[in-house]
């Protein structure tokens, strides 16, 4: 093993040898690959396809909501559309997005490892995802499902005559895909770090993935068993959640949210990890308060398990437990705020280079803050009673999910695109898309805060005429947002053939992933790196550059 110095980090030559893309050819070499980078590409293609499908349902719903009358879709079809939009976007896009694509690709590179700990299990997780996705597609074609993504009983077990069993079974399977990804990442972070790469030298993206994986590992099985009980109840007609037979529908909600609230952190923690990487790279600074940011990821993962019943304030839980869950929910704001303040402190007096990933992350910080603060509104019992099941809730979670998680996913995709493909994306078009996404997003969802506060309920295809102006604004914003998402699809594909070759480190960033060629060779590193520096050691790198280049 040879030791890489900071000097080497900056000036590794691109290798002319074969990389992970050109290593083998043919569909089978991809479908049976055990390479984490190739599996990341498989995931990228799959989740993009499902994102487009989920987006299609959203667009049709927004068109329906242009007019107060329910004129485009029947109420039954509309029920199916918002259900499918939710299920696809949550289970098949957001949860796998950053972990399974960027995490899969980057984790071994950031750790100086050749692969994840369990390459075959990694491939298995993709196959489970695909099996579940195919089941989902089959169900969409044969009639869909109308329970909402939350599958609340007793509607899902006794009354809905749509494909509840198939969809919950698909969610059960895709849950195991998520568990296996989390398990693989945890073992890899524990056991596969390069020599010298101590815990507090890890990039904050790795800390975020670690916290995410804990939630995937410990929350997802509870969803799995809950769905098993739901399926059993629906098929055999037992009464676990049926009051007529001695059961309790509230138990379903408790068990469902025991997973599905932490699942929010499965979606947002990786986004926070991407934010830390991008902020450091485009300010050329160490992340302010590195250890606080690292620990706050674990704190969010831990607190996330203690707040689930804030989804149930109006469901009939006791006022005392509601107060306790309200109180605990406020605690989540503390580690979240620690992160936002530390990113802001890093940006303070930095010369920020406003490349596309940084634009997305600036959007992320602002939008996540709005989403998080409105989450506190909802954690307050009194206000929650007023806005429960209104568009206020819809706006809130889209600010966290789309304004937060998707913005950061787009940031990460652009930031690491040169590493993944070896090509630069076209900067001008990418900046334009980032601005369109930001503008379109706010125009879509900010009016929904107002609509919800005024009392427009969610999940209806018709509404009172006085809400029309704000709904038209929202639909107009959705159109801009759709263009903003369609652009990257075009120019990123274009860049595969016509993009400028990126070289190993186009951003001049530190981090082990930038020390190897772009795209990386099959084994990631020709020699296992030995790490002797802290994460984001930009000051030392700048100094080393000054010495070698005498600039």
């Amino acid at each position, binding site marked *: 093993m040879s030791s890489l110095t900071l000097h080497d980090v900056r000036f590794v030559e691109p290798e002319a040898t074969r990389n992970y893309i050109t290593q083998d050819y043919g569909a089978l070499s991809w479908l049976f690959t055990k390479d984490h980078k190739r599996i990341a590409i498989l995931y990228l293609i799959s989740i993009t396809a499902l994102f487009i499908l989920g987006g299609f349902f959203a667009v049709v719903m927004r068109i329906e909501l242009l007019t107060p009358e329910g004129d485009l879709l029947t109420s039954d079809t509309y029920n199916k559309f918002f259900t499918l939009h939710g299920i696809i976007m949550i289970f098949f896009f957001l949860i796998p997005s950053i972990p399974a694509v960027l995490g899969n690709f980057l984790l071994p590179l950031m750790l100086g490892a050749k692969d994840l700990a369990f390459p075959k299990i990694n491939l298995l997780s993709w196959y489970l995802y695909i099996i579940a996705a195919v089941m989902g597609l089959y169900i969409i074609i044969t009639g869909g499902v109308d329970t909402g993504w939350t599958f609340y009983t007793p509607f899902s077990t006794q009354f809905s005559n749509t494909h509840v069993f198939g969809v919950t079974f698909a969610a059960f399977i895709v849950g195991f895909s998520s568990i296996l990804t989390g398990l693989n990442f945890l073992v890899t972070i524990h056991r596969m770090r390069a020599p010298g790469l101590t815990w507090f030298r890890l990039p904050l993206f790795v800390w975020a993935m670690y916290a995410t994986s804990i939630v995937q590992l410990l929350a997802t099985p509870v969803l799995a068993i809950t769905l098993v009980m739901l399926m059993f109840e629906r098929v055999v007609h037992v009464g676990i959640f049926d009051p007529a037979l*001695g059961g309790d529908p509230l138990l379903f909600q408790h068990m469902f949210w025991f997973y599905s609230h932490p699942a929010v952190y499965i979606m947002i923690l990786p986004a926070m990890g991407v934010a830390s990487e991008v902020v450091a790279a485009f300010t050329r600074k160490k992340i302010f308060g590195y250890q606080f940011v690292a620990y706050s990821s674990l704190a969010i993962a831990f607190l996330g398990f203690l707040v689930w019943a804030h989804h149930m304030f109006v469901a009939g839980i006791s006022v005392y437990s509601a107060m306790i869950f309200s109180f605990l929910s406020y605690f989540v704001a503390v580690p979240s705020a620690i992160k936002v303040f530390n990113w802001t402190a890093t940006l303070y007096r930095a010369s920020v280079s406003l490349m596309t990933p940084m634009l997305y992350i600036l959007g992320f910080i602002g939008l996540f803050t709005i989403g998080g603060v409105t989450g506190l509104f909802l954690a307050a019992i009194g206000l929650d009673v007023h806005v429960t099941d209104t568009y206020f809730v819809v706006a809130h979670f889209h600010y966290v999910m789309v304004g937060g998680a998707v913005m950061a996913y787009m940031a990460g995709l652009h930031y690491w695109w040169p590493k993944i493909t070896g090509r630069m994306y076209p900067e001008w078009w990418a900046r334009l898309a980032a601005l369109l996404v930001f503008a379109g997003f706010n125009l879509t969802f900010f009016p929904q805060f107002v609509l919800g506060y005024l009392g427009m309920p969610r999940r209806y295809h018709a509404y009172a005429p006085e809400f029309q102006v704000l709904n038209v604004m929202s639909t107009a914003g959705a159109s801009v947002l759709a263009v903003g998402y369609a652009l990257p699809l075009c120019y990123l594909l274009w860049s595969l053939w016509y993009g400028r070759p990126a070289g190993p480190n186009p951003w001049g960033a530190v981090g082990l992933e930038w020390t190897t060629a772009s795209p990386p060779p099959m084994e990631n590193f020709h020699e296992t790196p030995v790490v002797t520096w802290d994460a984001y050691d930009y000051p030392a790198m700048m100094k080393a550059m000054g010495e070698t280049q005498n600039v």
Partner: protein
Amino acid sequence: MSEVTLGGPPPAPQVEEHHEHHPFLQHHFEDLGQQHEASTLGMWMFLSTEILFFGGVLAAYWIYRVMYPEAWAIGAAQQIWWLGAINTIVLIISSLTMALAVRNAQMGRRMGTVYMLIATLFFGTIFLGVKMYEYTKHWQEGLFPGAAFTFQWPQNPALVPKIELFMTFYWCLTGLHALHMVIGAGLLIWFIWRSWKGHFGPEYYGPVEIMGLYWHFVDIVWIFLFPFLYLIHGAHHG
């Protein structure tokens, strides 16, 4: 690596110089020690998901037990406690043979490993056989929930839906456990074949150890299920 690893079992024996390219060393690990540690940690983490998986349905069981203690006692009284007790003993013995299989693999005794794994499979199969007998009996007695539930309790007919709820948890819990046993038996067959082929030895016994972790876990689940489902009937319903 050693300065930064957390917790876990003591490090496995390192590969000796002349065995640098052990046939079962996967390319992305530095050595067999790292591979062993990673696999063991992976199994422990998998078992933690299993705890949450069984924990979810056990939590539901427990909530309803507090709500309907009488129905739970009547439901438990429908079980044949001594069949459950025999199965408990059978499983504990199978855990012993599994542990001996691991020990034999560590010592490099090929046929010892094979015999002990066969013994484990034998006891596991006995468990499943007894379970099948119980299931058949419950089915005939109308104790399968849903449309097939014909069980009557004339002393207090209002309790019947709650007894049915108990039986729902009985079938869910023992069914999931039996499924884990079937998977374990399948794995054992594969491991018997691998041991027969001489894949394991002092340098490379990790997979047998991990198989053992899984098997012991499934046993421990049963150790909880047995009292929860068979022994809570109290004196007056026995």
